[in-house]
Structure formats: C-alpha cells, structure tokens
C-alpha cells in the first residue's frame, strides 16, 4: 500500500521562529542552542526553558533521527480528510529533541519504533516549506 499525498499546511512564523521557517524554505533544518547552558532548545524560542538565559544561537541540524513513537491515523479531519491512512510520529533527532511530525514517502504499515529517518521539505506555497521525515535509504 502506498501512502496518499498529504496536504502541506503553511506554518505561521512568528518573532521566535521566523529564521527557522525562512531556512526551511531554503531546505535547511535549523536548531537553536542556548549559549549559556548549551542545551538544544525545541521548539525555538528566545528564552532557554532550561536555564532561562536569553543568549541563544541558530545552527543547522543534521536533519536525521529515529522514530520514538508513531500512530497510523485511520480517519483524517479538516485538510487531512482524504489523507488517511497516514503516519504521525515523534522523531528523536540526532541532536536530542523529540519532535512531532509526519513520516512520509513510505507504506504506513512499514513504520516502526527505532526506524532511522531523515528530514524532507515540502512546498507549502507562497515560498514557505514544511518539514517532514522519511525513512533513511539503507
């Protein structure tokens, strides 16, 4: 079974996340690091949730990770009405954070916890892009 194409909703950049989404449109997966305690901050924001420093810097992440958990949504809603079955997962990035996303470009039934995945960017229109993950070619 091949997956249906998913809708690509446009993100809403704000004053914390404009750089992240601008980079995504350029095919880059940015992460933020706290310059004070060194932790990776996810999702990106101006204040470190660990040590509350406001000294933070962007850097380009590897875009690689493994699946921490997943579900196959059997009935989509809203823009996803005709998209089921599709996969929603938490991906544990190589850099540490576990982030919510879709797993695409694969049979939903083939997805498993621990599977290696990598980032892909999909055109969300108007020059915006959305990140998703696909199984890494082995």
């Amino acid at each position: 079974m091949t997956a249906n194409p998913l809708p690509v909703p446009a993100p809403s950049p704000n004053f914390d996340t404009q750089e992240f989404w601008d980079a995504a449109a350029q095919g880059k997966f940015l992460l933020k690091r706290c310059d004070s305690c060194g932790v990776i901050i996810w999702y990106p924001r101006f204040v470190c949730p660990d040590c509350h420093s406001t000294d933070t810097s962007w850097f380009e992440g590897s875009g690689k990770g493994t699946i921490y958990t997943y579900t196959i949504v059997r009935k989509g809603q809203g823009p996803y009405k005709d998209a089921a079955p599709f996969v929603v997962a938490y991906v544990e990035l190589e850099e540490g954070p576990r982030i919510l996303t879709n797993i695409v470009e694969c049979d939903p039934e083939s997805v498993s916890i621990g599977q290696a995945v990598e980032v892909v960017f999909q055109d969300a229109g108007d020059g915006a892009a959305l990140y998703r993950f696909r199984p890494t070619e082995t």
Partner: protein
Amino acid sequence: MSIRGKAFIAGIYEHPRREIPDRTLTQIHAEVALGAVADAGLTLSDVDGYFCDSTVPGMGGISMVDYLGLQCSYLDNTETGGSSYLGHVGHAATAIAAGKCSVALVTLAGKPRSSRGGPRGGGGGGGGVDAPPETSFEGLWGLAGAPYNYALAAQRHMYEFGTTSEQLAEIKVAASIHAQYNPHALMPNVVTVEEVLASPMISDPLHRLDCCVITDGGGAVVVVSPEVAHSLDRQTVKILGHGEAQKHAMNGRVDLTYSGAVWSGPRAFEEAGVTQADIDYASIYDSFTITVLEQIEDLGFCEKGQGGRFVLDGALVAPHGKLPFNTDGGGLCNNHPANRGGMTKVLEAVRQVRGEAHPAVQVPDCNIVLAHGTGGALSTRMGSATLILGREDA
C-alpha cells in the same frame, strides 16, 4: 486561616514599551516574567506557582509553563477581566499560606495598540503570530482530535513495557460491567475483550472501544467550610488532600510513558496523610484506556510498566476488585460531558463515600477515595489534578 502576614510581594516589572508590534503575546509574558523575578533577586527556576488570565495563548496557561520551562505545583487561570491580577495576588497569597507553592508569578500581556484595525498577528496559515507558541510545530500534522496523542503514548508504552491491546481492553470491560447498573449510561451494555479488539482501529493501537463516549451534559460541586458542613443535615465528604502538576514537552525531552500524575499524586497523598493502600475506591480519568493504565502506574498503585498486568483478573471491577474504579461506568461507557471527564470523577467519588453508588458496585465500608483528572494532551502538554476525599470522620 487568614492570609494576613503569610505572603509578601517580592518583585515587580512593568514592560517599558507602549507599542510592541514585533513581539508575540507569549514573548511579552516571558519578558515581564523575567523582569519581575530579576527584580526580586530570583530566577524563573524558583517559580512554583503561576497565575494568569486569558491573555496567555494556549490552554489555561499550560503553553506558557511549557514555553518558560516551569514546573509548578500550583496553577491558576482565573479570568475576571481587568481585575484578574488583583485576584491573582490574593489567590497566590492563599496558596502560599496553605503551603501549595512558595514563589508565585503573575503575568499580564496584551497588544491592543499594535493590533488595531485588523486581526491580531498576520503570520499566515497556523493562526497568526499570537497562536499558542507550539502551534506550527505540533498543529500541522493532522492530529485533529484527542485520540492520536493518546495513541502515540499507547504505542510507546507497548514498546517499552510489553503492554498489549488485550490488557487495555480489560479496562473498557471493567467500565462496561459498572455501566450496566447506571440507567443514565450512554453505553450500558457489557462488552468483552474480543469486542474491543474487533472494533475499528481509530489511531493505532487504539480501537474505537478504547475511546470514551462523546456526550453533552455537565456537573457541579459545592464546597463549604467546616462550620457550614456541621450545620447541614446532608452527609458531607471531607477533602483530605489535593495535588496538581503540569507536564509539558520539557524542552524536547518528550516522554509519553508517564504523566503529571507522578507529581500531583504524591502531593495529594502527602497532604492527606494516607497511602495507596488506604484507597478504597478510585475515580481515574478515562478518556481512553491508555489514560487509565498510565494513571494507575503514575499514582503508585503499581510499578511503572506493570499497569497492563495490574488490570487483569477483574482488578478494577467493584465491589471486590483490588482497585474498584469508575463505578458509574466512567467516561469510557457512561458520560464524558463537554469532552472533559474531571467533573464526573469527583461526583462518583463523592457517591462512593456517601454510600450512594449503585448497590451492585458500592464498595463496602468505603472510607477514603481518590479522584484523578487529566487534561490536554497526555504527557506532552497536560494538567494533572488529584483529590483524596473521605468520610467526615476520616
């Protein structure tokens, strides 16, 4: 008890700007929070109580607690318009006097000047710049509705601990055994493990019958002083302990195998001065079967990861199971009004203490009970609240 002399204002901060089009509401709340704790000579890491009104984007301040990386034992979202913050200071003093928290933060933010003449924000797709801050990172993946987040938790729990769909189904079966005695139950029929597993898959690994019912309705509670209680003819129920917590994404350290009950539960047990062994009946939030399983573990009724084994052999079935639960049929079979099951958890716990549950499911000599509520997205952006109640002489 009075608050007189029990609490002090230690820090204040007024945002210096009068037009702030280049910040989100969340950022302004964060800026004033940083300013006020700095003025007090404290840091945000010291804060264990958070008070806000509806100017905080997200559900009841939990998005803000997540954003700032706070771990609060007390959260108050009272909304009374412009008077909210005076009320919050009084509520904070009450909470501090009662030992519920020791450093309370109250914040306000708004942008009516920079948002004149149009909708707030304008960032496009996912709700504008003042959508809850996690929106573009969690709201775009097709997770419409509650089951999917709980399915993600169930899948991970199964992976780490070997929990099975059959074990989850036992929870639904127990609730349905109770529901048959409730003439108001939406789903009064007794179901079997096989029927749960044969129901359609909604979001792997959760089936339709792993989910609660969807119902209109409501409920209410009246709480009174000891003096009023003693003046009444009606049997009253003593509030012995209370604990609250929020669990959020913890800066990317998401762990879906436990909930905020690991913090709210011990706070309630400590205040009540009782242990798990003293609990005669438990109302446990049951939006989904996995919700019950994780809460049973988190509240300490069994070891983490052993919930699947714990619920076997009728452990949850009243009146004689190890832990009789949700004797009204719960949200799983009876009622989940407004998609919020916490109120009905309190109500059935009170009925059990009063001896007013259905005779078939009334726990004999029911002296001390627990009611536990779960809100939001299990383990990632949630509120947890635990109450321990007892007879008047408990």
